[in-house]
């Protein structure tokens, strides 16, 4: 159920909105409480923590064409004069500029999505420990095994003159990291499960553990890739990373406002092979970024970004939508209550195609199956892309050779990469265990994924 503290502050929020509306044309109050249960079982360190990751409020006001915000711990004894005084700017450098005010429709609703499993700390610790011990028994080159269970319980309230919304939703991640050593060579491999159900997340964690260790051990013999252009097949995590970096960041519409996104000139034009469809939205699937309303109080959407290779539209928060004269898409997100809202991705993924995975592998003369997201970086202005896969498996004449390369950096021009997609598998997997920064800060939970994709790319 909704966090009791937030529930107890709804009336205070309504009172504050009423008072501040005497000074401003628009007022809203967002309250957030995010609680994390983190259970760590590892070779050397164990811990169980219940951490209130964030708990506080942000008051948004609008007057004379400008929005201002005030973030604080509590609103019960907060005087409206404190908000007015803190956000008042007497003299500040700025050219004339007025943003339109968001017109809201009346909306009152309570949303709830909770973890159906009722597992105790002891039960979870036992499951993690069993896997840790089993992996250590399997191979003595394993020098550190760490399993981390995290349940994130998010409660939010949004109150304005026309809206009164509440939501509570849970998400669970179980991560495993294997560090192996042979002589002076140290390698590691990880996998993270993301589910709305603890029991399911732990089940997958257990099932995947032997393979995660096996890959770590194979990485001991992995070689660097010879830089060059190759045929690649991307696994769903790398497909998701490409979706996220190539067109996710590129269609965040606060970038359109700043004229920082090349995508603004390509709406209605081909940006990818006609086999490509791409989506983003908190309601587009059930994953790490599936909420019911965003931090502007806008309901979750499912936005189709690319349809049959043609760029359809971007995603936006309220402020960007007001500046561009478009509708917000429920993508306004904050790192926490003390930070600004930006347009952010949620669950971003490529849609399925018609090809079979086996046929895709058979079709490769010489190339690599690229696996497991490591990290990536976007360049929405100039459409350069850089994605790192943890490892690649060599394919020659349609068969795996047993050779492994690691790590592998995919780089190039976004349109070249997406236009080269020639096969798309028929199954989609979305990975709900990642975080994403905007530029170099503002971390939020996201998911991404897709089918297996066959493309041509520069590897280094």
């Amino acid at each position, binding site marked *: 159920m909704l966090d009791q503290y937030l529930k107890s502050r709804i009336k205070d929020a309504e009172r504050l909105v009423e008072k501040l509306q005497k000074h401003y044309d628009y007022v809203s109050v967002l309250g957030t409480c995010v609680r994390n249960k983190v259970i760590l079982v590892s070779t050397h360190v164990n*811990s169980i*923590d219940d951490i209130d990751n964030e708990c506080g409020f942000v008051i948004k006001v609008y007057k004379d064409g400008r929005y201002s915000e005030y973030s604080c711990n509590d609103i019960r004894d907060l005087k409206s004069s404190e908000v007015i005084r803190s956000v008042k700017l007497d003299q500040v450098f700025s050219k004339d500029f007025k943003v339109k005010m968001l017109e809201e429709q009346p909306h009152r609703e309570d949303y709830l999505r909770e973890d159906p499993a009722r597992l105790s700390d002891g039960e979870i610790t036992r499951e993690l420990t069993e896997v840790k011990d089993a992996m250590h028994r399997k191979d003595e080159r394993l020098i550190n095994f760490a399993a981390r269970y995290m349940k994130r319980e998010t409660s939010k309230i949004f109150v304005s003159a026309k809206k009164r919304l509440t939501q509570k939703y849970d998400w669970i991640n179980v991560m495993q990291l294997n560090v192996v050593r042979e002589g002076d060579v140290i390698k590691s491999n990880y996998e993270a499960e993301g589910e709305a159900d603890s029991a399911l997340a732990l089940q997958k964690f257990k099932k995947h553990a032997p393979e995660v260790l096996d890959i770590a051990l194979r990485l001991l013999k992995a070689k660097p890739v010879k830089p060059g252009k190759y045929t690649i097949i991307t696994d769903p995590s790398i497909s998701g990373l490409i979706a996220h970096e190539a067109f996710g960041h590129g269609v965040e519409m606060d970038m359109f406002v700043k004229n920082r996104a090349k995508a603004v000139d390509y709406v209605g034009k081909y940006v990818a092979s006609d086999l490509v469809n791409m989506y983003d939205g908190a309601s587009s699937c059930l994953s790490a970024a599936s909420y019911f309303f965003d931090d502007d109080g806008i309901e979750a959407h499912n936005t189709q970004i690319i349809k049959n290779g043609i760029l359809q539209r971007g995603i936006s928060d309220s402020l960007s939508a007001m500046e561009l004269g478009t509708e917000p898409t429920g993508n306004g997100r904050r790192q926490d209550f003390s930070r600004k809202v930006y347009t952010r991705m949620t669950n971003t993924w490529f849609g399925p195609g018609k090809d079979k995975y086996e046929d895709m592998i058979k079709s490769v003369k010489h190339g690599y199956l690229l696996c497991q997201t490591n990290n990536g970086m976007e360049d929405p202005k100039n459409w350069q892309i850089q994605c790192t896969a943890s490892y690649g498996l060599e394919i020659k004449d349609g068969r795996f050779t047993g050779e492994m390369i690691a790590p592998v950096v995919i780089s190039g021009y976004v349109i070249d990469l997406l236009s080269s997609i020639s096969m798309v598998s028929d199954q989609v997997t979305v990975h709900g265990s990642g975080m994403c920064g905007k530029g170099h800060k503002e971390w939020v939970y996201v998911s991404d994924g897709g089918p297996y994709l066959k493309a041509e790319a520069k590897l280094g």
Partner: protein
Amino acid sequence: MMKKNEIISCIKANKKITDYELTIQNKNSRELFYVLDHLEINRAVKTTTAKIEVYVADRKTVGSSSVTVTAADDVKSLASKLNKAVTKAKQARNAYYPLPEKTVNIRDKKGVKRDLNDIAGKVAKAVFKANVYKSGWINSTEIFVSEFTDEFISSKGISHCSDSFKIEIECIPTWSNKKEEFELYKFYESSKPDYRQITEEIDEILKLAKDRSNARTLKEVELPKDLKVLVKNDMLQVIVGTLSRDLTYRNVFMHQNHYSKKDEISGNPFDLTMKPVVPGCTASRRYDQNGIVLKSRKIVSKGKANAYYGDQRFGSYLQEENISGSLPVCEVKAEGIPYKKEKHLIIETFSSPQMEEDSGYWGGEVRLARYFDGKKYIPLTGFSISGNIYENMKDVQFSKEESTLRNYKGPKYFIFKNIKIS
């Protein structure tokens, strides 16, 4: 929010708690967000965060659990949280290690009164003073002016307090070559308002954006083999961070260290000292997360691994006598070489610096580099560099120029050979 003494009374009332550490931070900030040269939104932040680490120990084992105190808490709810934390600490046992004892308590509160709105306004003026070019402009700017008060109290009698001030600027400069627009990224951080320096830094990044708009590719410029590659800023911090992490108690205890004491890191001698406070480095701090009052430790001497450093837990597990604490700043001292007359390549900005700590693989896609062909600098873009840091360090050289970054002070450039350029 509960007062400090109320929180401590609550902790002391729970007799099952063996030890505790309490950290409290107050933050007050003003933030300005610009699109081009107009203010899009302004923000004010006034928050307090409080965290308690609860320890339950016997002779052989210790368990700990974290509790955060929020505005929602009162004596009753905090007492309940502490009870639950005790249960969790008992469930998650670890090998015993003692918490640090009191040595000296730091009282570093200057109590400076500042008008944050006024400072933020002056910072904005300094940023836009550099916005004077026809073909180049500041596309967007975020300004954060913040003051913090920190307190650390532990059951071992440690009681530190300090205050700090920080200006952060995130700026995106853009330059048009009439066919296309090119942008770069600048993050500036300082613990004192130096408005002239802010204008100079923004001007410099605008000029680099101009270089990027005129940059050529490797198809147009042929680079000689065995070219010296100079790296700076973000990548330098990543490299030094990787090397120093290798010599932490934690990595040594877990056998995740590539170097041990006396191992040669480089044939070219350099010293690497971990320090608590270096003027200009905003990561500086005088005590760590366990309250240890930090003292400098030279971990690399004349190119050889010299000592380990790190936190109380792993220092204790390694039975170190003089545990250094988690030192935040790295200072490198080395003899600089003259490089300016011979051909070289300076990597100005990466898309995102990459470092795989297990293997030492490093590199990334280069957004802007400058190639000196013996006569002039030619801006380059659209290529990648890669190497292995453990191999590359063996014959690393250093520039005479110095730079001070968030957690680094030392040569402005590390100069590498045998770097793959593709």
